[in-house]
């Protein structure tokens, strides 16, 4: 895909770990925010235990770690608006979209209307999205 003389690639960030127990979730978020500065086509996936990263109501006061979950709601402002959640991962954990943060972006081509960034996809649909990527980063 070309935009003027700049090549735009499809970058996917695959998040598969619960937050806080390991550093992967936070590191992924840091890398995503840095990458957002390069105007690429960015997608985020939350699958397996990665779905826990988006849980509402996280409160790390008692574990002495930074609660980075509010940062996800800023992704829309960084023009990251393709966030895929694997439905089977939610089902296996007794969770639904209701348990997760509601992530939105403002569409500049539609009078800044607020739109959903989250796409709930089946395992099969997710496989298809992964297949279309140029680069997949695994966290």
């Amino acid at each position, binding site marked *: 895909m070309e935009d003027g003389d700049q090549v735009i690639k499809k970058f996917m960030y695959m998040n598969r770990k619960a937050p806080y127990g390991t550093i992967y979730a936070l590191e992924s978020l840091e890398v995503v925010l840095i990458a957002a500065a390069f105007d690429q086509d960015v997608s985020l996936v939350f699958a*397996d235990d990665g779905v826990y990263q988006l*849980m509402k109501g*996280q409160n790390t006061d008692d574990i002495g770690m930074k*609660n980075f979950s509010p940062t996800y709601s800023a992704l829309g402002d960084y023009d990251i608006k393709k966030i895929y959640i694997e439905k089977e991962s939610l089902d296996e954990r007794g*969770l639904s979209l209701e348990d997760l943060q509601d992530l939105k972006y403002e569409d500049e081509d539609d009078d800044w209307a607020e739109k959903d960034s989250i796409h709930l996809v089946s395992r099969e649909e997710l496989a298809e999205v992964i297949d279309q990527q140029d680069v997949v980063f695994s966290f």
Partner: protein
Amino acid sequence: MAMLHTVNKSPFERNSLESCLRLAKSGSSVLLTEDGVVGAMQGTKYSKNVADAMTNVSFYVLGPDLKARGLSESNIVDGVKVVDYSGFVDLAAEHESVQAWL
């Protein structure tokens, strides 16, 4: 000999909870911490394993780790007791030994 088993990994990620439950003797206790707290939640693929194991072992989960992850104490498997850090220390002191499943 009453042993305290600690599990700090999600059952979806590692088989440490499964191994622990397979080898924990009747009368021992299991404390779920860090990402291991996921194992205490109701309605997951592993809830039944925990509920079944509770006929032989006592289950505890570390409250601060649930709270950090946005997991509600009111949504844990029936019979699992929530403890704080001092409760963790008490458990360690009450049991003869501590076995950490990594």
